[in-house]
Structures are given as structure tokens and as C-alpha cells.
């Protein structure tokens, strides 16, 4: 086995709070390894980042630190040492006492992890009471938990008055719910906290606040924190050391600075290249192919089939995770060569075509409501022919409502929407077929937008039959052409959506939207359900198609950096009103409105994180007072 203890221990003088050694987790029945050879340690007060795309095994590792394996998996070997005790060797009862007091967990979705029927104060009290006896010793006088609850609430920046504690989870916002989750995790002053993508569903501003709370609390209480995330920008801003996982193994481990400025593994480099950036309208580079699932992994380096630096030796044996410098380990036999190459930024600058004056779509004082609640207040904008306009805003800003009004799916609006020179009816059903054909909509979630009972070919053919564009053999030919255009093969036509990955499904959705030659394409958060490398590929594809086919595109997103890689103009939506609209480079580079400035400041971005000294927080700093 390749124990990477030598390098990290010499570079890590502080006593580790948690030491993971050679952790292996298998599928219980088949003994197929899911994650293998995981070793790292976290010092007290440190936030350690564990980064990977879907299926890399990062959550599996996070849960193993609590001694837990998901249903169907089994921890097959290795150790998780916490203060000299091996968590993996404990009995269920010992684990139960450990969880919530010595180790705790903050799950991804606060809405489903809090009990909707109990007041939040009671849920906090439960956590304290469950472990009160263990902490104080038997017979100790039970401390008054109210004081501790109030203290914890102040720590997570929530009001500590009894009225707030009497609320139910649904009476709190998403950010407040996640703060309650943090409060529950920190309440017993644990030594280790596992945070599993706790900010995924939150707006950037809320996310920024939650992240700073996590960082401060970990340092204040000397808690070792494992932060599991798919978002490199978030991890770059939060963690000092980061491990990158790919196909069940750590492929690179080092300081965030080392990883993001001079990564030694080709996968890390490609991953960083796929992250959209606020500065510079460059195209994004996806990673071709996809990660092998457990059981189908190649005998050599797992990344070899997708790697441009592959040599014969890569495919023969699994490379060891070895140190390339102090506190920087890479699992690649060509790491030294990779390191000498200049960190490839991202793709070439995009040559955005000039928008034409002719408006393809105009919105004049559109007011949209849900029932009596007005969510969009008098929005006017125009989308020029051959132009990509990004519509950005936080959740609840009304951006999706505008998109659905344009597509005729949201009917409760007044004002005027004109397609070319045709004014549109509110409901899609009352529009003529040509208007419906010329506006196509791509949905956020490719898992919901394709009927699971129909084949891909059937799905893409549907608009052709519906609008009478083509039928029979002609239709099949056009479906095959369209599949090729979205970088799939014609053989996909016979498959069902549940046989495809998320990225492939979104390509099918794009093919369906483009098969009948629309003029306006409305893309509603089309990449938010996808991994960064898949997102990069989809954005690349959409950008190329938009330019080649001369489409007008309304690109709705909450991801500000993404805007620079696809759109010429951007409209910033804030509480149903357009706060700022203009050239993308200008609005995002030198924002004119305070709201836009705030939004950009709260957006985790790689270049900001890299620009800050030492990335994240410096390792040694006096604990904040108060």
C-alpha cells in the first residue's frame, strides 16, 4: 500500500484531530470497491476540503468519518482515528453516543433534515439532552440548556429570543434552516464536523454568510471540519488544504493554493479549466468522456481513458499517491511533467458575434403574478437577433417566471411580449403553431424534462410530427442529424432517458428544442443540475449552436461567472425588477448598481480566492474575539 504519511506528517507539525488511513468501502454484496486507499488528516480548527464530481465517492468518504456506510455499502478496511480511538472499530451503541457529540454532520438539504413537526428550539434541545449525560458524567447536575442554546444561536448569527426558537422549520428561510443545522452540529462542541455540500441550495449571498460562519466556528472551537463539495470555487475560498477525488481515489492532495495555481494531476487541471470565471469571456473546456463506475474502472489510472497525457504505462498499474513537494501529493506518474507546464487557464477568448438591431423578442412592461402576489414588476427588455442575453438573479427574483411567461407556461401576466412582430397570447395553447415552434424552452432539470417512458428518438421526433415539419423516414433522418449535432450518436435514438447520464439527457433536451429550427431559445438554469465538467461541455455546445444557427438565446442562470462564457449582454434581476442591464463584460467588470456589486462580491470565485494571500484563511491567526 502506498501510505502517504511521510510527506504530510513532516509538513504538518500540529497534532491531527482526525487521521484517516487506507479507508476502503465496498459494495456489500459484490465486494466491488467504491472508494479505495483514502488517507488524510485534519488538524483542529482546520477546514479540509474534499472535492469531486458526482460519483467520485466524496460523500461516501464523508459518511465513513461518522462510521456510517450507506445502504448496500460496507466499510471494508482502514481506520478513522479520532483522538486515538478508531471510529470504524466501535460498536453501534458506542457510535450512537459519539455521533452528535464528538462527531457531527451537516447534510446537504436543511429542509429535509429538520423535523417539520417540531419547533427548532426543541430540536436543538434534543441534541444537547441526548448527549448531556455522556458529557457531564453520570449523576452530574443537568446544565440549563437554555443558556447553551442561546449561545449557539448567537454563534450562528440567528436571533436567540424564545419567539424565534418556537418557530417551525418551514417558517424559516433556507439560509436560516441551514444555520439551525450548523447550530445543531456545533451545539455539543464536537471535535469533528462533516459538512456535506451544505450551501448547494442557497443563494450566493446566503452562501457567503454560511461559509464565513463555518470558518469562524471551526476556528473558534478548534473543530476539525471536513467540507465535502463539488464546487471548487467554494472550497478554494474556505479550505486551506484540499483533496481532489476521482473515481473513488484521491488523485491530488495539497494546499488550496498549490492545487489551484499549479495542479499536478491532469484531472485537477481539466477540472479547474472547466470552471467559469468572472474575468474574461473565454470558452469553457469540458472533459470528454465520463468517469468509470465502480466495477468498470480500468486496471491502470482511472483517468487515463480521458487523459491527453496518457502513455502506455498509465494503463498498466494504478499510480501511487506520491509527494511532489512539501504538502502536495499527486497520483500521476507524469506529475513532474504536468507541473512544469504552465497552468492552462481556460479556453480561447470567445469571438462573440455582434448582435443585430432587429429585435427577435421584446418584453414591454411585463407584470407577472402568482395569485394576487406580484412577482415581476414591469419588466421591459429586448432580445436582439443572434444575441445571447443572460438573465441573472437570486432565487425568488422572478427570472424563471419571466422565462415561463415567454414560453406561455405562466399565464398570469399582463403587458406585451412580441416575437418578431407578432404579439403573443398569454397561454401557449392560444398561440399559433408557428409562434410555439419559434420559441423553444430548455428546462433546468434534465431528469424531469424527458418522459421516462419514451425513447430518445421518439422524444426528439415529437416536435417534428407536431409542427408537421417532417415525418416517417425524413423525421428519423433529422433526429439522427440532430443527435450528431449535440455530440451524441444516432444509436441513442433507441435508448430510454434512464439509460443516460445527466449531461447526455440535457443534450437530448437541446436536440428536442432545436430540431424544428426555432428562432428564440429560452434556457432556464440548464446547467445547474450538472457537474462543472459537464456544465462546461454543455455551455460550449450551446454557445457553438447559438452562433452556428444564428439563434437568439435567453440564458437564465444564478451563476454569474458562467455568464461571461456565453452571453454578450446581461440583465440583473432583483426582486422582480431589472436592476441593471448592459454589456456582460461591463456589467460584471464595473457594475453600476450596488446590488450587482454585492452579488459579485458574494460570488465565490477562483481568482478572488487565489488573489487572497494563502487562499482561504491563513493557517495561524488569533481567534476572533466576541
Amino acid at each position, binding site marked *: 500500500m502506498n501510505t502517504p504519511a511521510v510527506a504530510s506528517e513532516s509538513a504538518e507539525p500540529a497534532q491531527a484531530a482526525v487521521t484517516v488511513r487506507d479507508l476502503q468501502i465496498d459494495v456489500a454484496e459484490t465486494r466491488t470497491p467504491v472508494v479505495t486507499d483514502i488517507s488524510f488528516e485534519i488538524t483542529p480548527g482546520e477546514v479540509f476540503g474534499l472535492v469531486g464530481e458526482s460519483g467520485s465517492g466524496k460523500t461516501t468518504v464523508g459518511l465513513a468519518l461518522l462510521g456510517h456506510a450507506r445502504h448496500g455499502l460496507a466499510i471494508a478496511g482502514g481506520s478513522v482515528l479520532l483522538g486515538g480511538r478508531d471510529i470504524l472499530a466501535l460498536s453501534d451503541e458506542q457510535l450512537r453516543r459519539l455521533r452528535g457529540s464528538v462527531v457531527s454532520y451537516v447534510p446537504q438539504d436543511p429542509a429535509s433534515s429538520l423535523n417539520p413537526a417540531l419547533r427548532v428550539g426543541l430540536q436543538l434541545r434534543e441534541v444537547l439532552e441526548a448527549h448531556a449525560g455522556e458529557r457531564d458524567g453520570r449523576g452530574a447536575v443537568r446544565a440549563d440548556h437554555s443558556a447553551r442554546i442561546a449561545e449557539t444561536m448567537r454563534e450562528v448569527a440567528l436571533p436567540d429570543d424564545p419567539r424565534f426558537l418556537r418557530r417551525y422549520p418551514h417558517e424559516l428561510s433556507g439560509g436560516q434552516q441551514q444555520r439551525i443545522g450548523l447550530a445543531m452540529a456545533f451545539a455539543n462542541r464536537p471535535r469533528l464536523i462533516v459538512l456535506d455540500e451544505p450551501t448547494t441550495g442557497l443563494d450566493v449571498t446566503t452562501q457567503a454568510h454560511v461559509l464565513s460562519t463555518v470558518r469562524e466556528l471551526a476556528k473558534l472551537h478548534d473543530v476539525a471540519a471536513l467540507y465535502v463539495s463539488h464546487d471548487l470555487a467554494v472550497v478554494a475560498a474556505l479550505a486551506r488544504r484540499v483533496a481532489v477525488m476521482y473515481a*473513488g481515489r484521491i488523485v491530488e492532495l495539497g494546499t488550496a493554493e498549490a492545487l489551484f495555481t499549479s495542479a499536478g494531476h491532469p484531472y485537477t487541471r481539466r477540472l479547474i479549466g472547466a470552471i467559469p470565471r468572472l474575468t474574461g469571456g473565454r470558452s469553457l473546456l469540458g472533459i470528454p468522456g465520463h468517469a468509470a463506475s465502480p466495477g468498470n474502472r480500468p486496471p491502470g489510472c482511472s483517468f487515463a481513458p480521458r487523459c491527453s497525457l496518457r502513455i502506455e504505462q498509465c494503463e498498466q498499474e494504478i499510480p501511487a499517491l506520491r509527494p511532489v513537494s512539501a504538502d502536495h501529493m499527486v497520483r500521476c506518474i507524469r506529475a513532474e511533467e504536468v507541473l512544469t507546464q504552465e497552468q492552462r487557464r481556460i479556453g480561447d477568448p470567445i469571438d462573440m458575434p455582434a448582435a443585430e438591431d432587429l429585435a427577435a423578442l421584446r418584453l414591454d412592461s411585463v407584470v407577472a403574478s402568482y395569485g394576487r402576489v406580484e412577482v415581476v414588476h414591469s419588466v421591459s427588455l429586448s432580445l436582439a437577433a443572434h444575441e445571447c442575453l443572460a438573465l441573472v438573479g437570486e432565487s425568488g427574483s422572478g427570472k424563471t417566471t419571466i422565462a415561463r411567461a415567454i414560453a406561455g407556461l405562466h399565464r398570469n401576466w399582463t403587458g406585451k411580449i412580441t416575437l418578431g412582430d407578432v404579439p403573443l397570447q398569454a397561454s401557449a395553447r392560444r398561440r399559433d403553431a408557428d409562434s410555439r415552434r419559434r420559441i423553444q424552452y430548455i428546462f433546468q432539470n434534465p431528469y424531469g424534462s424527458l418522459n421516462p417512458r419514451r425513447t430518445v428518438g421518439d422524444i426528439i421526433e415529437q416536435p417534428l410530427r407536431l409542427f408537421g415539419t417532417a415525418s416517417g423516414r425524413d423525421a428519423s433522418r433529422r433526429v439522427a442529424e440532430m443527435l450528431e449535432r449535440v455530440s451524441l450518436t444516432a444509436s441513442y435514438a433507441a435508448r430510454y432517458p434512464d439509460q443516460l447520464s445527466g449531461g447526455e439527457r440535457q443534450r437530448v433536451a437541446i436536440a428536442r428544442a432545436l430540431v424544428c429550427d426555432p428562432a428564440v431559445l429560452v434556457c432556464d438554469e440548464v446547467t445547474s443540475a450538472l457537474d462543472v465538467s459537464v456544465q462546461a461541455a454543455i455551455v460550449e455546445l450551446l454557445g457553438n449552436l447559438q452562433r452556428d444557427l444564428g439563434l437568439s438565446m435567453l440564458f437564465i442562470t444564478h451563476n454569474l461567472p458562467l455568464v461571461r462564457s456565453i452571453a454578450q449582454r446581461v440583465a440583473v434581476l432583483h426582486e422582480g425588477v431589472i436592476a441593471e442591464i448592459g454589456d456582460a463584460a461591463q456589467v460584471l467588470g464595473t457594475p453600476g448598481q450596488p446590488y450587482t456589486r454585492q452579488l459579485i462580491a458574494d460570488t465565490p470565485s477562483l481568482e478572488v480566492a487565489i488573489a487572497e494571500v494563502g487562499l482561504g484563511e491563513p493557517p495561524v491567526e488569533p481567534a476572533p474575539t466576541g
Partner: protein
Amino acid sequence: MIPAAGPDVAAAGVPLETPPVRATSLLRRSLRLWRTRIGVGLVGLLVLLAIVGPFVAPYGQSAPVGAPNALPGGKAALGTDYLGQDVLSRLLDGGRSILITAFIATAAGLIVGVVIGLIAAYARNALDDVLMRAMDVIMAFPQIMLALVAVAVVGAHAWVIVVALALTTVPRIARVARGAALPVVERDFIACAEAMGVPRWRILFVELLPNTLGPLMVEASLRMTYSIAVIAALAFLGLSTDPNGANWGTMIYENQTVLPIQPWGAVAPIIAIALLTMGTGLIGDGIARTAAGIDRSRGGE
């Protein structure tokens, strides 16, 4: 087998959500369970009996073959009934009418119920409430009572029994169809079809219906079970289409008084009805378990 989906579907090879089931594969997968196999076997056996029975029956269903209430043996394998007719021949003859009536009634109730349920789920407005409250009103009448009243008022015609049974089947199917369709209606592929202007009936039956088949199949087999029981019960009460003809329910009624002397006249049809309803019940149970993923713990997928 379904090829492994890409990496961003299943985390580390463990499916996060059960994959959507296709109707055919659901039936086929449910056949891996012994309860479904037994159910199919029982139903198959009794259907076969009902179809072939009349042709292989040794005597006519109303032909007197000997002394009344004779025990099995001699000319009559299962003895004779209270009129001296052959029990075996009447048993072989008596299934057909029950099965046909139950099947037609269930099928009619299924079709109407599915249409109402899907329309209610898709409407998402006052129509939903109107339809479902109407279903509640029908459901307030016990199934057997409604059938009894209908037969008593109109007369014991086959179509009256079919209509009465179908009518009581409709609201139960409609509720299940609506319940299964509600989450599907919210999914984006329905919105996508609306944005493209797909006709409403196509959305209902092409987009929506195939995604609700699992629960519907379970409910349909359950309804079939109940229909058989009600028809047999009506016949037992003397309300069958042909009072002199053989019918399992009628046979039980006719021969119940002589149970201590010649039990087979009543017991044989009782066993037949019990096996038939057990069969349809087991099939429904098997499909339900498969749809819920219970089969997987026993080395399924």
C-alpha cells in the same frame, strides 16, 4: 438489463432513486416473486377451467344424473346436488359467467376511472374538486348494496350487474389514477408538451398514462378480486342472470342446507371462488411489491 447510467446519475454505483419502471418490465420483474407466480398459476388454472370446462363436462349442467345429494362415487365424481344434478359438471360450467361479468365490469370501471382520474389530476382546478367529490359520493355506497339495489329495481340482467359493478369500481380506480398522476403532472416534460402545444388528450394518454401504470395495475387486480366476490355474493343471494343455470355463487346457495349430508355441492364452488380471488389478489400483491422495490432485497437487480 439496463446498462449502467453515467457517473452523474448514480453516486458510486448505488442507485439513488429507483429507476422508472416500464409496464412490461414491471410485470416481468414481478414474476420473479413466488407469490406472483402462484397467483398467475391459480388464475390461469381457473380461467382454463371456465373456458374448457363446459366442453369436457361429463353431463349437461341441468341434466339429472341420479338421486339427490349422493356422495362422490360411481357416475358423479363429486356427487350430486340437491336436485340430483352432477356437481362436477355444474362446477365446470359455473365459472364462465362469473369471470366474464367480472372482467367486463372491471375493464369498464378501469377505463372510465382512469379517464376521470387523469383529467382530475391534469386539470389542477375546480374541475378536479368537482370530479373527485362526485367520486366520493359514489364511494359512499357500499359496493354490494348498490349492486343489490340496482338488481332489485331493474332486474337481474347481466348488463345491470356489469354497470353496477363498473360504477362502484370507477371512483376507486379514479382515486388511484389521480394520486399516481399528480406528481407526474408537475414534471417538466408535461410543461414541455404544453409549451409545444401538444393536444390535451395526447398529454393525458401518451405522456401521463404510461407513467401511472404501476399503481393502476395493482388496483385493477384488486378490483377484479372484489368484482368476483360481489358477483358470487349476488348469485348466492339468488340474483344471478340465469336462476337455473350453473353458477358458483348459486351452487353455494342451493346446496348450503345439505352441507352435513353432501358437502361437495357447496364446498367445491367455495374452493373455486377462494382460489380465484386468492390468485388475483396475489398477482396484485406481487406487482405492488415489485413496484415498491421489495423484490430487490431478495437478489433482484
